[in-house]
């Protein structure tokens, strides 16, 4: 293992301050395996949608860290830690993907939760 390279590539982290959370936990992330019939036969298809509620999907490349640097569009094995700022419980919903994650707040009032996002690339 190249320790230096591993060090440089691993454990990158970003702090995103004062992020507003408006997604609500009523939104359902539903993965479906389905059959569609056509004249040519049956198709096996995968469907994925967020249904109900307000789904807030955060893409890493839409974020800017506390130094003003944009985040990469994809991260290797990322984790997201939320640091609450206004007393509204906010949380990551489902799986943190390589390019995006979902975030939601527990209560609908006030209108949004305020958090700092600590984003870690675990590699």
């Amino acid at each position, binding site marked *: 293992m190249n320790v230096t390279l591993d060090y440089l590539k691993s454990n990158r982290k970003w702090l995103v301050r004062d992020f507003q959370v408006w997604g609500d936990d009523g939104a359902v992330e539903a993965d479906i*395996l389905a059959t569609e019939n056509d004249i040519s036969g049956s198709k096996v298809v995968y*469907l994925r949608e967020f*249904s*109900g509620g307000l789904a807030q999907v955060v893409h890493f490349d839409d974020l800017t860290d506390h130094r003003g640097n944009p985040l990469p569009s994809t991260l290797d094995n990322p984790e997201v830690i939320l640091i609450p700022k206004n007393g509204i419980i906010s949380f990551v919903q489902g799986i943190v*993907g390589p*390019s995006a994650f979902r975030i939601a707040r527990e209560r609908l009032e006030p209108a949004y939760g305020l958090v700092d996002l600590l984003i870690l690339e675990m590699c």
Partner: protein
Amino acid sequence: MHKLLATSAAARPTGSSPQRKLFRVPDGVFKGRLVALFMDSATGISLTYSDNPYSSWSTPQQIISNSFDSPFSAAMDIYGNIRIVYTDAAKDIKYLKLSFAAGAWNAGSAVTVVSVDDSYNAFILAGDDGKLWCIFVNHQVSSDFNYYVRVKISSNDGQTWGGGSLDLGTQLSSGSTNICFVTARQLASAIYAVYTFNRSALNYRVYDLEAGLWGAENAIHSGNYIDDNFDIDIGSDKKLGVVFAVSSVPGIYFKEFDGSAWSGLQQVEPCESKSPQIFYTGGTANIFYAGLLGNSYRIPRFATKSGDSFSVSDYSPAIGLFDTVLVYDDSAVSKYEDKTAAAGDSVGGDVFHSFSTALIESVGDCLYLGKTNRHFCCAIVLSAAGAGGQVVWEYFDGALWKSFIPANGTYHFDSAERLVYLWTDGESAPIDWQVGTVNGFSAYWVRARVSTAYTTKPIGSQIAPAPRLTDLVLARNGF
């Protein structure tokens, strides 16, 4: 997202509502990996998997080659191992474990669960105590020809079941002249087995894990005809939710059991529906199903319980109805006419331009199909098929109309009905397909433009971005 995984010649490639076929690895390095099981043919069962964001799937790998063409079920444990129960070619119930290691699933040897008479529609559940429960339907062809719901247990990870393959296990139902369907869930120290009886009832029995006994059979609902259009789940408040469809009465219905009493019957949506799925987020019941749009086209619908009622919507913004349907007659004074409402319903012969009385007729006439989201298919039902004419299919790239040939072949409105797949799937839509404005409506547009005039003009009945959805299953691990 709409992603084509495979085509199949099986009767029901993704199986039956009460069963499980789509799983998510719950933990470890491969946490979040989705794995789908389906019948790839009348005899084969295949596996494919994908990681977030699930737009690319592995090449399907056949894991079973001697299946009967009948629905099967599976479950995934916390380590990612998958257990499958299926009917084999001899109509015995077989059990197969797929061990998960280094990101791949490796099949062990199949074990016969039961080999007496014929058996179908198996469901597998792993109890918290480590035991495996296989609930199945045995067709007693050697005696009374009735179908019986039975259960067998394995205490050694599926190596042996009950007293061996000749042991029929415990009988849960009385004899039914029609085939039954089964599912099960564990709630605290009880196993709930829910099953249909003779197409006329949805019943359940409860196994008390502490007492080691099955309770008496109770009815959830009765009516004609109840087949495999049902599903169950358990909420965080320990309520058992049941969703089902009865083919004699259009609609999706819901009941909930709080441990001592059942709620009243609630109608989720009155439209004719099938293949319902239910899962709870917290104490809220979420229901998914294939709702009939008309003319055999079914679309995925979503309902969430809010108080005593349900909020119902389309599951996917790409599937349902077009936001705008315009007919364009190049020779008319008023060239565009909005036929959105007429195209959405299944009333016959009401989609045409008032000047030509045709859907499209002369060179330059167009049918414009607009949706605010990218879509992938178009169900077209005509009251009169066209003849002699040809169209060019085009999409709008933000500046120009670009011609394309639909993925399942071009269609010139010359047959009474056609499900046109514009692209192979939703993921295959052209990346340069852009929102444009036609007659003041902003949408992702596709149009069929007449390049050769018709001698017999087509007239439309229903035009919608709707597939023929038959079976659907949600991702759930079944443990």
